[in-house]
């Protein structure tokens, strides 16, 4: 079996086959992947990471494809992570996002990867964040995440993006309410896709009203509402321009740094938790000893825990 470290250099060079393999290692938490990620992390940090979220059928995959085409026309490389729910019963999944992303078939500058929500050992969110590191470290200019915005793990994933776009469509009715509830806080841009359909301007008005009511103070990014027809590309260049403007705004106002730090905090906590918990399980001598002592009331749980994590 190929080891992660054998292909790190090829990943850094942006070779698709190596990137593909590394993403599998990340998902499966293959031995040695952490060392590879350590190297890749040092080369990462220059990609613009976009998150696209919204209900199934709103046109996210079509929009991702149209955005990819736009970025390619500017000579930028694109990496896509398309997250699809898995079957609760079998754990299997049918990942269909690629169906709408077919016209990049033989362009090595567009890398598309389908991710099943239950496929990742050690959690979807962490796997996705590490996957971003792989694509970013491979020199990808724009990384696009597609998720249906349900479930905490998926909201976590989308929060890893620098620019988050929430996609809605005309005539969603109650679904606009659903967006209000869960995703309002994370939206940097609202997209009303399928603007070729009746009711687009009403949806825009509803979103505008919703944004007006949300408490946004002065000096904050003014969340724009963009209309697109992903199916034919209308509005996609403008949307990309807005994404660019958002990144620029964040850079100027220190928000980019703030988000990067928030992200770093999350990731450090995740792995720290894992490192600590790995030592705190039956079979580890110190842990078994602590169990004996606490059970026999010779010490208390807090003291034992402090002792175990090396903090007195």
């Amino acid at each position, binding site marked *: 079996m190929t080891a992660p470290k054998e292909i790190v250099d090829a990943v850094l060079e942006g070779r698709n*086959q190596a990137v593909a393999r590394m993403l599998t290692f990340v998902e499966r938490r293959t031995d040695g992947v952490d060392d590879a990620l350590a190297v890749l992390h040092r080369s990462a940090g220059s990609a613009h990471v976009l998150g696209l979220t919204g209900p199934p059928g709103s046109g996210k995959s079509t929009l991702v494809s149209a955005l990819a085409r736009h970025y390619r026309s500017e000579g930028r490389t694109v990496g896509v992570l398309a997250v699809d729910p898995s079957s609760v019963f079998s754990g*299997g999944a049918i990942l269909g996002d690629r169906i709408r992303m077919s016209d990049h078939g033989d362009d090595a500058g567009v890398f598309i990867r389908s991710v099943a929500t239950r496929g990742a050992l050690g959690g979807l969110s962490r796997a996705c964040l590490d996957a971003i590191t792989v694509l970013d470290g491979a020199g990808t200019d724009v990384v696009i995440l597609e998720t249906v915005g349900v479930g905490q793990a998926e909201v976590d994933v989308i929060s890893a993006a620098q620019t988050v776009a929430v996609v809605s469509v005309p005539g969603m009715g109650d679904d606009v309410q659903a967006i209000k509830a869960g995703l309002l806080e994370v939206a940097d841009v609202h997209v009303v896709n399928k603007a070729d359909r009746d009711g687009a301007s009403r949806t825009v008005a509803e979103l505008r009203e919703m944004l007006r009511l949300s408490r946004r103070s002065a000096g904050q990014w003014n969340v724009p509402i963009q209309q697109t027809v992903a199916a034919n590309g209308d509005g996609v260049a403008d949307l990309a321009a807005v994404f660019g403007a958002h990144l620029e705004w964040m850079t100027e106002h220190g928000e980019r740094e703030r988000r990067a730090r928030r992200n770093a905090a999350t990731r450090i906590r995740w792995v720290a938790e894992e490192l600590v918990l790995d030592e705190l399980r039956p079979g580890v001598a110190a842990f078994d000893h602590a169990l004996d002592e606490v059970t026999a009331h010779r010490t208390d749980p807090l003291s034992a825990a402090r002792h175990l994590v090396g903090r007195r």
Partner: protein
Amino acid sequence: MDTREEPIRVMLAKIGLDGHDRGVKVVARTLRDAGMEVIYTGLHRSPEQVLDAAVQEDVDVLGVSLLSGAHMPIFTRIFHLIDGMPERPRFAIIAGGVMPDEDVDALTAMGVAAVLGQDTAPDTVVERIRDVSAPAREA
């Protein structure tokens, strides 16, 4: 660490003008229900697109569904493209759909790991895919 078994990843592809997609969708559901991750390409792909996609998705098995009668030229093209790749992909390639018996040997000689025709039972499809994926998963 979680010791769950890693799901087998399979790409199901339709290449060329062949518009018969009922069978491939049935197979997709069968494999999903057997716990596999299935990436479906949709209709009317080129061999180049499908191979590129299979590499990016790092699948264990690439299954091509063909009912159009064009399986010989299409598989010839696929293996020609693979010969031109800098590195041989690790996935196994299988064929499914309507293919006359007399072509099976030729397909096998080209490198097709399994030919699963019309009356293959779902359990057999699952079993054969498990079999052919094993070497790829070692790679």
